[in-house]
């Protein structure tokens, strides 16, 4: 899958420009880390990429076609985890995933095994029959990740997927995403630099709606001549107010 962003711009009603003239190309297989301070435009960019928002100007091409031209096909190859989301609290984990499998048009005969797979990889086996309202915040986050993984989508867009998870779970999911990115495109928005450093092969630093850096984490460290990605990121952000 190849996603091209051409002069993408998004301005909200109040006049705030969330994304300013962004152009870049993302292609699978890759695990792309999208970082930036709060309000940098990460979530807006994610929503633009999932078709939940339309750009004010510019365009997004998916394999050469405008994103919404083949909406149905695009959605069938997309797994999305928003930063904030609600689930149907009266369903069990398994029922919810079954519901999502139906929405994603996963065939009935493969749906069960697919649900088993995502439950296993998100470590929800013991919560399979539990109502979602009884799950903790972290467990609900895992259900969110599980639904995004359903159907092995070619494109995974994850907005702060490890928020609310304990350190061990975070490592586990980081590894899961790295493994999954071997044959698909994963775009991971996060403010946890650690997540990006160890797993991403491409880093995009976004600030005030503009791209401040595109490259590998090593390239950023090299550019800023520091040994950790966190320091490189801090150095990149330093003095940005005066720019």
């Amino acid at each position: 899958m190849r996603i091209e962003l051409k002069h993408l711009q998004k301005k909200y009603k109040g006049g705030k420009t969330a994304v300013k003239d962004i152009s870049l190309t993302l292609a699978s297989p890759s695990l792309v880390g999208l970082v930036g301070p709060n309000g940098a435009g990460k979530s807006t960019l994610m929503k633009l990429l999932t078709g939940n928002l339309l750009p004010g100007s510019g365009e997004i091409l998916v394999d050469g076609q405008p994103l919404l031209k083949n909406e149905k096909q695009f959605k069938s190859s997309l797994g999305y985890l928003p930063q904030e989301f609600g689930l149907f609290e009266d369903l069990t984990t398994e029922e919810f995933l079954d519901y999502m499998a139906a929405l994603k048009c996963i065939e009935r005969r493969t749906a069960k095994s697919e649900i088993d797979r995502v439950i296993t990889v998100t470590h929800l086996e013991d919560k399979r029959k539990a109502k979602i309202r009884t799950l903790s915040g972290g467990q609900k986050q895992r259900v969110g990740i599980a639904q995004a993984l359903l159907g092995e989508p070619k494109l995974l867009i994850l907005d702060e997927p490890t928020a609310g998870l304990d350190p061990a779970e975070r490592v586990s999911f980081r590894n899961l995403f790295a493994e999954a990115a071997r044959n698909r495109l994963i775009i991971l928005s996060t403010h946890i630099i650690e997540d990006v450093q160890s797993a991403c092969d491409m880093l995009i630093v976004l600030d005030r709606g503009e791209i401040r850096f595109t490259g590998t984490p090593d390239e950023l460290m090299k550019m800023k001549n520091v040994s950790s990605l966190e320091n490189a990121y801090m150095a990149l952000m330093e003095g940005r107010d005066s720019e």
Partner: protein
Amino acid sequence: MIGARKLSHEIRRLLSERITLLFMAIIATGAVWYSINGSGRTASDAFIVNAAKNSAFLGALLFALLTLLQFHRDFRHNTNDIILTSTDPIHHQVRKTLALICAAIVTSLLISLFALPYGMVKTGSYFQPATFLTAWYLIFLAALVFAVLLTSGFYMLTGHWETTSVIMAGLILLSKLLESMHANSEYLLYWVQTTAGNFSDVITNRFQIDMLLWNRLFCLLVSLSIWTLGLCSFRRCGLGLFSSFRMNCSRLWIPLFLTSSIILSGVSYACEPIFDDSKPIDYSGMIKTDTGETVITVVADTPEVANPELMLTEKAFDLDVSTKKRTLSGTAEYRLMNGSGKAQTLPVQTNTGINIDSVVINGIEGKATRGETGENSTANWRIELPSAYEYVIRICYSGRMLNNNTSDQRVTYGISDGYIWLPADGITPHLDISVSDECSFYGNLLLNEKLEPFFLHGNTIKGGTRNGKTQWQYTGSPDAMGISLFAAEYMTETFEAGGLNAELKYFAKHESSVRDMDAANVIKAAIDYFTEVYGPLFYDKHLTILELPAYFSGGFAGGSTSAVDETVFSPKGYIPAESPHSGGGIDVLVHEIAHQWWGIATMPVQDNTSFWSSEGITCYSTYCFLKEYLGEDYVQENYINEWQHNWEIYKNAFYIQHPEYLEKLSDKDVSNIMGSFQGMKLYNIMPLMMLKAEDALGGTEALQKKLSELYMSHMGQLITYDDFLAATGLTEEAISLE
């Protein structure tokens, strides 16, 4: 297949939610409560229809709320962010709506588990599956479906739960308010409980079901229009209302569906097939009551005809009624005299649903031109006649009855497989010309073999069969406008009373009730009593007591027939009545019989100064009979106390105590206010004045003697208040209640 699978998951999801189950449980509990505590004029109303209507209000309210919760929660909790990225947003809104409709269907089915056996047990042999299905599926379920469509439509349209809540609360309460005010002028608009009521236990309810079907069709189309408008406006991709509208409408089926549903809504409103475009009746000089009972108003002069130069000398008809198609077709032949021999215009009146298909005048084809619709479902036609002294005119006509759209929009006339009621101008076209005293009127009627006809005036003899139908031969009087034809499965009981051949014609299904009530003996006793007290009825040797469907609500007397609705024959205590003083039973029966003496044989004429009318003296006569028949206690409780109670209300009414304020109001307001007192004046105050007259004259017998003299001396004539005072020798002051 994929769509069905997604829908089935959506339904399962919805039905697994606690809030859905809670709302369904509340509605079901309400339905049980309403069923057990129902009341009404018939068993069908009390145990089935009214329960469904009340449940429809509760159900519409809760399903509107449930829909709002479902739609708004997915937005507020960002559930949409996951769902709408995984599926087509428009298809998802459609599935959500359909799932809610399925929940409504499940609720109806669950309620039926109780309501069906309960209704069957309580109504017993009167249970009609069509009534049950109409009540719980056409009224109740449809109200829930409309609530879902309207709420989801308005939510998608406005994008605000607050605005949607206000709109829906307004729509539900407005419908309820209008229904409770009995403002029936636009029955199509009452989308929650509808104007359904007075369902019959003993004959088909086809007429009410017709109204409900059209009401539901119109409401469905309007709801679908609003829902589709909402679907067009569903906010997507962070766009505003107009951009989303443009984007959603790029799917051609959505604007096509919207346009179709809006056009069809308009068409269904404009082409409403039950009521016509009758002019409102001009009530000036007449009396309007708030009682729902018919006030017999005597017209002092013979009504003028539109063309007095023409005279009808003979009228014959051949009428074929199709209960299957619910239409009629016929041929009527008229013989006319034209004194001047000059060309004439023949004024013809038909029911608004009847079309004149062809006209032949003296063997030459003529033409009927339809003019303006008049009052009371009368279509006015004109036929130009060439110069001639005599005419033989043959008119072929056909159509389906239409009903008066003014007043309370009640279906009175129509054809169904179980019941027929046709007005005079629905049986044959009526010529608005002079009628010769020797004019003969006869005809043939072809009718479904299980139905027996009854003409309000005239005689009918059963003939052979033709085209698989029974032929009935009719002879009667052509100048009687109230010649209505009724047909049903009747049972007839004949007996002698007051020197008359009396017959009681009642619906076959009411046989046991009529027997249990000993109705024939009550009627005989009443006729004998009035004959003995006032004098015999001279105008006919026959008197028929005819049973009418519940929807007529009351009774009437016309010709040698006194008609009462079916509730008269319900065993006491069987149906929980809406009001302890709602009338019915023996009282209405005797009242309509008494009208034969006061209203038919003589015509006590209403004026605008006194409370005198045929109603007052008829109520008094009913009271006198029942005092003898059922005893003092009965009439004290059901008559005197009631009359005195209403007299207190009347004399303490603001505008009666302060008539000076009426001067500040418009004529229309004054007319409405004073009109609202007419029922009390006629039915309560005048009878109380008669009681006072009794006291003044020395008792019941003394007054009745005077009334008998009045009756015998005014046979076939008008009786004014002054006539009454002169006959009794009393003054206005002597019987005044002040």
